[in-house]
């Protein structure tokens, strides 16, 4: 099976979030980038498992600049066969999706996997956009994926529970927790990643639909009111009269 896994970078989850240029740009100062956890832990690892049991090829794709090559190498170290970088800043979800769809159209993949969402912009947009652009069916937020010939059986999150579905290839799937277990790259993987093919592809001309104009940080919390563990009536009273939440 020919699998395409969409990889994006995100700031390490412990990063301090700050902005510059009059709050219009994310402050990258001191920020470590990682592979977006959903892309790495679930989409990529499940793709590798499928390849290990039924053969095929796993290509990772990123829409980004040369600065993202380090993150691409991290994903290659986990075990992808080769990588593609569409050479452009992904200004919005549609721009990224249109680039990935254009590449996928020209290269015929059986299965396109993404993460559930990026943990920086949390849009959960790119996968559905790729699917629509390619006119393919889409299974969102899959927590399980089993291959049975050209039919896939998946479990996905729906409002209030789970649903088991069947779909045929080609298909787009966004991957959530449960799909696979995180893999820690070993030394051999890291060495091999250095020489795996990374193809740089020019971007196609696409206008973004949206623009991030500015950012703000939440207001600082006021000091916490401490309550005597033996006086839960007081807590309940404060939740009712002061906080007005019960």
């Amino acid at each position: 099976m020919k699998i395409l896994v969409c990889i994006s970078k995100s700031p390490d989850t412990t990063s301090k979030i700050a902005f510059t240029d009059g709050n219009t740009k994310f402050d990258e100062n001191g920020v470590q980038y990682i592979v977006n956890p959903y892309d790495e832990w679930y989409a990529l690892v499940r793709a590798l498992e499928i390849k290990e049991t039924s053969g095929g090829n796993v290509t990772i794709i990123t829409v980004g600049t040369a600065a993202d090559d380090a993150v691409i190498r991290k994903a290659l170290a986990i075990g992808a066969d080769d990588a593609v970088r569409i050479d452009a800043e992904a200004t919005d979800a549609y721009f990224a999706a249109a680039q990935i769809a254009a590449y996928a159209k020209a290269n015929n993949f059986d299965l396109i996997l993404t993460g559930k969402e990026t943990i920086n912009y949390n849009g959960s947009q790119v996968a559905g956009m790729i699917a629509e652009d390619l006119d393919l069916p889409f299974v969102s937020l899959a927590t399980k994926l089993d291959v049975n010939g050209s039919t896939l059986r998946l479990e996905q999150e729906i409002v209030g529970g789970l649903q088991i579905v069947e779909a045929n290839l080609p298909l787009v799937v966004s991957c959530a927790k449960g799909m696979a277990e995180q893999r820690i790259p070993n030394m051999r993987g890291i060495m091999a990643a250095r020489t795996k093919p990374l193809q740089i592809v020019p971007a196609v001309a696409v206008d973004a639909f949206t623009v991030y104009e500015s950012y703000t940080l939440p207001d600082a919390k006021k000091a916490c009111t401490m309550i005597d563990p033996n006086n839960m009536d007081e807590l309940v009273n404060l939740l009712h009269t002061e906080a007005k939440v019960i």
Partner: protein
Amino acid sequence: MKTLVYINGNHAHAKASFEAVTYAKKLGGEVIVIASGNGSDLAKLGEYGASKVMVDKSLDHGDAQQITKLIAAAAEVTGAEVIVFSHDLVAKAVAPRLSVRLKAGLISGAIALPDTSNGFSCKVNVFSGKAFGLVSVKTATKIISLLPNSIQPELNGSDCAVEDFNGNVGAAAIKIIDTKIPEGNIPLPEAELVVSAGRGLKGPENWGMIEDLANSLGAATACSRPVADIGWRPHHEHVGQTGVAIRPNLYIAVGISGAIQHLAGVNGSKVIVVVNTDPEAPFFKAADYGIIGDAFDVIPKLNEAVKKFKAAH
């Protein structure tokens, strides 16, 4: 201006649906609902401001591709300029598809009404709730997916007409084999009150007191990531940066340290109560009310106090 709101008929009476219609009404123009499925009493959406509900009953369990086609067809006949979703799991699958189909920019997870003084922009959560972004849409048609619990439903109308609508959506490409929806569960993202517990509870057998407290309050239950990872609690209860992001009115965190990745998914909560034995637990910095104490002692007492309060009110 016309605004179209997509409502899943099976959830037509969920608070999130009323929020979406209220939000659309606040945009100022006429509000029309496009619904799929066999929901009953759709006319009630009129009470929140819809002038009409169009429904395709044949599409009870449509896949994302079919629902996208349905909404696109409704957008065309109504000439809607704005399309509103409640940011639930259906919206996460459908809104991005619709965005490409209609060439309409999507604001995903809006938490406020748009600012139209200079273009069209809207506040959203970014960096897993660690910051807010202002996103502007550059396309003529706009799609907004509203985060649950961002505005209060408001009654400002009366029952409205319900018309059948055929979206001509074709066959489903995805076959549903089985659906598992636990009875009586409040879906976490919609819950106004949440009681959550972490590794401090020592083992799954100790969750009874958390469930008791949740029942007394009418709250949903949640947990920290390690608790779901070790299998003490189901995965769908895991909140945080890599779990469900929630913004209830009240979040009670019991035996959770307050790691940055946990806080990221819950710091949109209006009020946070923390119960922890360790006065140095980082969660106290994010809390409104703190109790330094042993959960095994505090939670039963809190439950009694809540019951007493409920009986008196």
